[in-house]
């Protein structure tokens, strides 16, 4: 089922939680709503589900306006951040709940319900937990049961609120790969909310970056990462180094130094520029025409990459990441002079940063 979000606005008192948000989600896609906490992404998810209502705008499910439809009739699956498993029911009863509360004439036979529950528990690989109770489960197991319960009613849309938020790092990684595989198997249109860019970029088909109630950018993980539309997106997705300067005749001027801008260029005037740590080349020594002069402050060469902290002549700090092998080949040490040559610079007009 496709989801079409049209001009949704929502206010809590004087706080503008969502401001004219429009998103189109084609059937079968897995989409991440990504943004910092308080940006309105969870509110949007709850509005899609019908757990909250919008002040203005429409939600179209498969082209039909669902705004007036009660949450009970929308046939969405919702996985809550803290799972909201029914504490007093066994795992099997939790999963069966949505099937058992149907009106009598639509309800399946008890044997069929049990068969379905068993299949769902197998799908989430937890059929051996059927008779346990939620408090006896680990966080990751609860998460998967919550998913099985949501899938039991065969929803046309699956909505997940911070699905991995309450898990520790290792389980989180496992589960998100698992969720991606599961989605590839069942292909139900899915939307999940997250504040973790790594999670969004790894799992989703498309990412919607939201900030202060507005959509900043919509696109594939590659496109939002490589071609951020706004300074916020550039800043929010992965770590970046920020430069303030001026753009003049195809160069970014930082104090007395100038860096050549590529084909993308940038409009003239005051500008902010972003360079990711891994987009620098390091050259030993200072060179008149070759990049920013700096000095190495600290090096952490653990694992496959070397994290290098360098200081520009005016004292500003820059993070650089290169492969450990490359670093060893350069034979640099702390205190050495280097030149930084960015391979890729994203430039925005300075005014855009304030927005």
């Amino acid at each position, binding site marked *: 089922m496709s989801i079409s979000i049209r001009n949704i606005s929502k206010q809590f008192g004087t706080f503008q939680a969502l401001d004219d948000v429009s998103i189109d989600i084609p059937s079968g896609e897995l989409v991440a709503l990504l943004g910092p906490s308080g940006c309105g992404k969870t509110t949007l998810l709850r509005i899609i589900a019908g757990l909250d209502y919008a002040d203005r705008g429409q939600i179209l499910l498969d082209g039909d306006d669902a705004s007036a439809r009660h949450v009970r009739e929308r046939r969405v699956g919702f996985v809550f951040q803290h799972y*909201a498993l*029914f504490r007093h029911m066994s795992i099997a009863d939790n999963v069966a709940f949505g099937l058992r509360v149907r009106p009598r004439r639509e309800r399946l036979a008890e044997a069929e319900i049990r068969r379905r529950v068993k299949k769902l528990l197998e799908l989430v690989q937890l059929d051996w937990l059927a008779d346990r109770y939620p408090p006896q489960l680990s966080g990751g197991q609860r998460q998967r049961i919550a998913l099985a*319960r*949501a899938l039991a009613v065969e929803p046309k849309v699956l909505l997940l609120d911070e699905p991995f938020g*309450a898990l520790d790092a290792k389980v989180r990684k496992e589960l998100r790969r698992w969720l991606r595989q599961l989605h590839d198997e069942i292909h139900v249109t899915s939307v999940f909310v997250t504040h973790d860019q790594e999670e969004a970029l790894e799992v989703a088909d498309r990412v919607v970056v939201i900030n202060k109630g507005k959509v900043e950018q919509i696109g594939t993980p590659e496109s939002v990462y490589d071609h951020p539309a706004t300074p916020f997106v550039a800043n929010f997705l992965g770590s970046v180094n920020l430069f303030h300067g001026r753009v003049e005749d195809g160069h970014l001027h930082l104090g007395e130094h100038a860096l050549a801008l590529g084909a993308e260029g940038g409009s003239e005037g005051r500008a902010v520029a972003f360079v990711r740590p891994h987009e620098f080349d390091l050259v030993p020594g200072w060179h008149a025409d070759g990049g920013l002069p700096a000095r190495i402050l600290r090096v952490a060469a653990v694992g496959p990459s070397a994290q290098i902290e360098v200081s520009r002549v005016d004292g500003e700090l820059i993070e650089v990441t290169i492969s450990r092998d490359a670093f060893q080949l350069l034979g640099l040490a702390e205190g050495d002079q280097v030149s930084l040559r960015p391979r890729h610079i994203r430039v925005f007009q300075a005014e855009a940063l304030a927005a």
Partner: protein
Amino acid sequence: MSTSIALHAGSLERAETASTREPAWVKVVLISVALSFFAVFLLLPLGTVFAEALRKGWGAYLEALVNRDAWDAIRLTLITAAIAVPLNLVFGVAAAWSIAKFEFRGKRLLITFIDLPFSVSPVISGLIYVLLFGAQGWFGPWLQEHDIQIIFAVPGIVLATIFVTFPFVARELIPLMEAQGSEEEEAAVVLGASGWQVFWHITLPNIKWGLLYGVILCNARAMGEFGAVSVVSGHIRGQTNTMPLFVEILYNEYNYVAAFAVASLLALLAIVTLALKTLVERQTRRQLQEIAATSETET
């Protein structure tokens, strides 16, 4: 207001380390003071009730209980509780549902109003019904015309009892349901459950211990209320005597053994109440810990 706090109390204790320990003599003195106070103020009155009731032996004790007047008082007490407790139970659930599960303006004010009967003297709780339904009251003339007796009759006793036990169930449920939040109910609604299904299958199982706790306290007060029913009763033997009122009559007639015999039944009720309360407290505490545990980060 008192009971909601008692919910979280109980045998909360903690391990001590040397740096946060008092000298031994301080500890001994404090425990001795507490135990002496406990013995004199709590144990002694309770013991006295049974000792005085059995002063002249089991025969006299039973005789005091097995007679027409005593039976009538017991019966009226049971009837009163049987009406007041269910009414306040339904009210408590409705009030807690609207207060804990929804956001609306004036919520704090509503809670204050629900608390009111706790802070009104029992005597005034009776008086207000006299002012409404007594011979000189608002509805007095109309009631007389239609030959309906409320004050100095059973309906008055029931009304006064409903008033004094009004907040008990609501006061237990509101903090419990607020702590539990609405996520489980929302999950049930998304899964297609109707309002009643949500209530019966999700909310009720989650609040059952708190509900029981409120009912126990409500019942104890309903059966034991003295001041309010004393004002509206008129003390007609066999008609408007509840057990506490009957105790007073017997005591004022210097019939101490009988007074304490009836009182001993009420004291037993108090002991059973406290035992159930301790049991239920343990359950609710475990439940609250589960809530805390399930909403915490863990693997």
